[in-house]
């Protein structure tokens, strides 16, 4: 045990000086600790605290990348504040999202949602995407607000996120959306995704309402075909 602790200490020290291309074997004790603490909450919390300390220190981008990957596996609410501060940093935002997407606590979603108000451009696209990947129903209102964004990438990312969340509220927001033309195809795809989710859940009326919206002549033919098939599927289901 003492031997393992010494090795972990040494690995944490090595991590502080870590850069891509350096010998990764030096970090192996951290990997081993991630595995060995899976059934020991206290040891895992201690490991998480050590990694957070590295993340908050002045280490290389590569070392912070490594920590984010590790926190994606073992991270808890305790990691959220440190990761949240990285969301606005161009170089590390994606790795912070990588971890926050996977941390199951509500605070992780809250942090991502809060970041929507502070980031823009590609970083906002990423945060929207992460909220979608989490299937975070509580974020629908904030995501829906981005549907009208003048940046087509942001509007499209918001639509895609709502299509991943697939709740009735997400569907409502998509139905009401009037995005700029460049994001419209994603909005339609997401409407179809919601309808399919409702079909799978047996919510035929909800699914049908979306399909009816998409069979109109103003929609592309492929969408009308998909919607027509969807309506048929709704009608084919016995109540």
């Amino acid at each position, binding site marked *: 045990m003492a031997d393992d602790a010494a090795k972990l200490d040494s690995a944490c020290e090595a991590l502080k000086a870590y850069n891509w291309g350096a010998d990764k074997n030096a970090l192996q004790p951290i990997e081993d600790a991630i595995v060995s603490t899976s059934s020991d909450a206290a040891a895992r919390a201690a490991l998480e605290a050590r990694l957070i300390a590295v993340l908050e220190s002045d280490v290389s981008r590569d070392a912070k990348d490594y920590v984010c990957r590790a926190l994606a596996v073992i991270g808890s609410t305790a990691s959220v504040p440190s990761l949240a501060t990285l969301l606005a940093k161009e170089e590390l935002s994606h790795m912070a999202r990588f971890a926050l997407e996977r941390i199951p606590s509500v605070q992780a979603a809250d942090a991502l949602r809060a970041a929507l108000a502070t980031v823009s451009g590609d970083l906002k696209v990423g945060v929207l995407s992460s909220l979608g990947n989490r299937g975070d129903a509580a974020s629908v209102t904030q995501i829906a607000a981005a549907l009208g964004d003048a940046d087509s990438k942001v509007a499209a990312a918001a639509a895609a996120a709502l299509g991943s969340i697939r709740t009735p509220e997400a569907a409502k927001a998509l139905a009401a959306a009037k995005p700029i033309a460049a994001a419209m195809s994603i909005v339609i795809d997401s409407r179809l995704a919601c309808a399919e989710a409702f079909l799978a859940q047996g919510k035929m009326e909800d699914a049908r309402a979306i399909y009816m919206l998409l069979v109109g002549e103003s929609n592309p*033919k492929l969408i*009308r*075909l998909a919607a*027509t*098939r969807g*309506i*048929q*599927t709704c*009608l*084919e289901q*016995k*109540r």
Partner: protein
Amino acid sequence: MPRTEALESVALVTKVLAVVKRNPQYRLNCHRIVIALVAIVLAIMLLDWRLAVADDNQQDELIKMVADLISGEDKDFRAVGFESVRSGAKSAEATRHFAALLPKLSPESQIGLLSALADRGDREARPALITLISMTQNEAIREAILRAFGTLGEAADVPVLVKSLSASQRERTASHISLKQLQGTEIANAILAVLPTCSAELQSDLLEILADRRETTTMPVMIQAAVNKDAIVRTAAMRALSKIAGPEQVAGMVCGVLRAETGRERDEAERAIVSACLRNPDVTAQAAPLIQAMQGLAAADAAVIVGTLGRVGGPDSLQIVETWIKDSDAGKQQSGLRALCNWPNASIVPRLLELFQQADLPATRAMLLAALIRVAPLPDERPNQERLALLEKTLLLCQENDDRNRVIERARAIRTIETLRFLLPFVENPVTSEKACGSIVELAHHRDLREPNKLEFDKALDIVLATSKNAESLERAKRYKIGQTWERPKVTSKQ
């Protein structure tokens, strides 16, 4: 489901009433309990009824939607409608509605709907097919109707399908497939009922269909047809029997062999008997039914059947064949020799060689030599070197170039690099050159032989390219040299 629940509720009411009857303290509230329970049951039944009505409305809406889609001009939307016909709205009523659309549609939509109804497989659509086929002369639509009969038809549709076997090629093909596909125990009888009224060509088709349907109960009719006065019917009957007959039918099939004209028909009939004999899983008893059938035959007929016996092979057959070869009667000797020359494997090679050395008559020597050339390279448990050595030995017995060419042609059956080396010298001789080139490209066709010996094969193929005048050999040599394969021309079963 609510209907089931209602029934369960009625059962529950009955049980509760039984408990109330047994316990006087509950009797005061008995009428209230009954009223409450009856109300629950009625509510469930009302819900059930309302859902049933909703389901009906939903189905009506779906049927209308599908009708609109398949009546439309856009083929992609029609396809969506056909998909619903194939797998949606699963009720007889829906099928009748869809089928009723047929006469109102454009020809293209009719064909699509017929295909979808066929895939749906609900025989409720059958009356619409019968009406439509009587109304249309459009070949493509008739073809689609005939194809749909395959899954939607029944025994009563057999005459229409049989009649269409004499129509255009498309209708003929569709009817042929549907006659094979029709389900039901009465189909075979329906086909047999029309069989006597058909032309020889049609009878031939129907016999093939019966065999492909594996209608084993019709084998007595096939055996009868094997002695028909028309060679087309006889050949078809024996061909059909070759697909399904077993040892029990061999005695009957013997009459077919005897009735067959010498040459191709007889040859095919004999092969049919061999197929039937070989279906006996007991290898040692495969010739037994034929030997038994031979015993009751007149000498002339037995002389024909002994040749067939040779094709089956086996120790019992060999014993009989040897008796014939040693007979003092020259005719019987010849029949015995013919039987030995038909042998299915190389086990009789030493005997063939012995008889070849003893034979005086050129015709007998030619027959024995042809048999040696045929059996020497047959694939069996012998090593390839032994098979090739036997072929080389046979080559030495050849006096005629035609025989040498046959040896060279048969060599391709021994797929070894030594065979390639054996063949190369014959390319230089103009008399044997083309056959040798043909065998070389055939060996090269087999990648597992060609690739490990690429250098040698490339040289040989270059020689073929420089020597051969045969377009097929040249094409094949070119392809194999650059690592491509070559697709053999397809041979139809009736060729």
